[in-house]
């Protein structure tokens, strides 16, 4: 069954005993610091509007305390919003009654937690089957499904260990296996890879991408790592102080950072993996030269193809092979090292 998009609309979250009373004031410009100082309430999220692509990966980024975990908890309503709605398949999650919410959580969502949140008194396999057990899936079947994912995340042989006999990265993978075993339409991953070493991390990214190719789940993925965001995200939103500062594809954000905050965020990124050839191609003059490169290829791969073919000029073609423009190696290299669009904007 295909996943649906998640629509977050006009979402506000103000932590404190009397949050509702301050929504209007926040709408009229009351800031996070002032709200905290004068009224003792914490502004968690303000005016969030995000449309998370169906069957795609939505990445949420932002500094510590910017509200990422708060946002992801609204999607399965571990936190109730102060105002606004979260729509899935046309239904407002925030208005579901207790029963519908429980069914929604059981069958439509699975979550990986930033702090793992494993059940300490249960072994790895018992943790992994938890979601299915709650749904009432027979033990034999749920163990078989869990076993597959335990092996896939590289924890074979640890089935009967307790969580505190495992390292942090291993515990995180138990959390991952637990969520994946649930086989839900929506995967909520709150810094699901933060405790993993670089090798396993890339491997787990591949797991997610493979899963996406096959099953097309709607994934919400929180990360601090921009390279990870760009590799996984069909769409990226960047939060600051509970507000969305910019959202769009990775390339859009890298090429057109909305303000200094985001410029600082994207400064260190590997641009060669983000920018696509068509972004920097020049119009065709005369016959197409060199190797054909398909639209959507990242600069780094294009450069590799051209170097292999020992040419310094190539032409960009669309998916049907129709030539669209041309690029040369020096243009590619300069786009990889200098922020072209910034200079263009400045000029």
């Amino acid at each position, binding site marked *: 069954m295909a996943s649906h998009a998640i629509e977050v609309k006009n979402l506000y979250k103000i932590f404190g005993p009397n949050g509702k009373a301050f929504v209007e004031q926040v709408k009229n410009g009351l800031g996070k610091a002032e709200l905290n100082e004068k009224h003792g309430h914490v502004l968690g999220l303000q005016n969030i509007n995000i449309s998370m692509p169906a069957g795609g990966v939505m990445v949420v980024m932002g500094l510590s305390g910017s509200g990422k975990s708060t946002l992801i908890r609204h999607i399965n309503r*571990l936190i109730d919003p102060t105002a606004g709605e979260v729509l899935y398949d046309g239904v407002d999650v925030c208005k579901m009654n207790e029963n519908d919410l429980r069914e929604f959580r*059981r*069958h439509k969502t699975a979550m990986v*937690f930033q702090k793992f*949140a*494993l*059940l300490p*008194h249960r072994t790895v396999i018992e943790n992994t089957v938890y979601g299915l057990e709650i749904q009432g899936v027979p033990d034999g079947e749920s163990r078989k499904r869990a076993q597959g994912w335990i092996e896939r995340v590289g924890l074979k042989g640890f089935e009967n260990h307790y969580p505190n006999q*495992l390292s942090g990265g291993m515990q995180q993978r138990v959390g991952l296996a637990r969520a994946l075993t649930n086989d839900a339409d929506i995967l909520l991953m709150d810094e699901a890879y933060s405790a993993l070493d670089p090798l396993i991390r890339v491997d787990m990214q591949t797991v997610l991408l493979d899963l996406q190719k096959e099953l097309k789940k709607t994934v919400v993925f929180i990360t601090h790592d921009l390279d990870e965001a760009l590799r996984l995200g069909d769409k990226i939103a960047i939060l600051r102080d509970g507000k969305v500062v910019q959202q769009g594809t990775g390339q859009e954000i890298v090429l057109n950072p909305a303000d200094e905050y985001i410029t600082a965020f994207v400064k260190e990124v590997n641009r060669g993996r983000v920018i696509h050839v068509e972004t920097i191609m020049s119009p065709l003059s005369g016959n197409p030269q060199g190797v054909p490169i398909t639209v959507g290829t990242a600069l780094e791969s294009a450069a590799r193809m051209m170097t292999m073919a020992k040419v310094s000029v190539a032409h960009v073609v669309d998916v049907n092979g129709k030539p669209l423009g041309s690029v040369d190696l020096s243009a590619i290299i300069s786009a990889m090292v200098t922020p072209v669009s910034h200079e263009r904007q400045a000029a």
Partner: protein
Amino acid sequence: MALCEVLPGFLCKFPAFSDNSIRMARKSIDDGFKALVRSYIDIIDAAVQPLQVFLNFLERLFVTSPWPIILLAMLAIVYFGSRNIRITIGTALSMLAIGLLGLWNDTMVTLAMVTVCTFIAIIIGIPIGILMARSDRVQSFVNPVLDVMQTMPSFVYLIPVVMIFGIGKVPGLIAVVIYAVPPMIRLTNLGIRLVDKEVLEAADAFGSSSWQRLKNVQIPLALPTIMAGINQTIMMSLAMVVVASMVGVGGLGKNVLQAINNQFFTVGFLNGFALVAIAIIFDRTSQAYGRRLQKHSEVIHG
């Protein structure tokens, strides 16, 4: 003194209600209470009947079975509970000493009493503790009641217990349970409230119903604390059986009471030590068992 000569009288001597009106009030409360009890006596009797049966059954079982069987059963329970050979040997030695000193039967009576009391305290205490943990309202209501139960001198609430249930084993049992149940309730409440919020959130995120959440997460994680509550309850029951012997409970407590009345120094201490021995056996076994329940937290990583 001098001050009282100049001050008006009511500042020097506390202006109490007149003796007469207090006596009237006291009498009408006592009489009303007695009348109430008298009109419900059948219901009360029927209600405590199962307790009586249960207690009598256990007492007869303990007292009439051949002592080697009881001893072996006890050692088996202690060993499989604690998995500790030293505790088991200690149990064997103290029970043999108790037998040699002629206190076997009295000890069995006390043991039956404490077993039933603990059992009832658990059955009553855990659900109340759970309710308390689920609602702050219930907690703010139950807590003061527990405070009263724990600080009221135990002799005082023997009075209404005797008025309602009369003299005998069952009233004693009820008094012991009232005295011993508060730590059970408090520690169940505490244990559940201390369960990690993140873990509960995970249970919620996967769609646990509140029963599943209780059964799969809260109770198992609160279990060490609940076990501590059971341990406390046992200790307090043992302390209270002596007091309860005043209303007709037999066993070691009764001997102690007689020893006090007649100044039998040796008898008093021997029976006292028998109580201590049982207390230590229960304590060590239940603690060792509680520790074994926490096997999952043995190895701790950062």
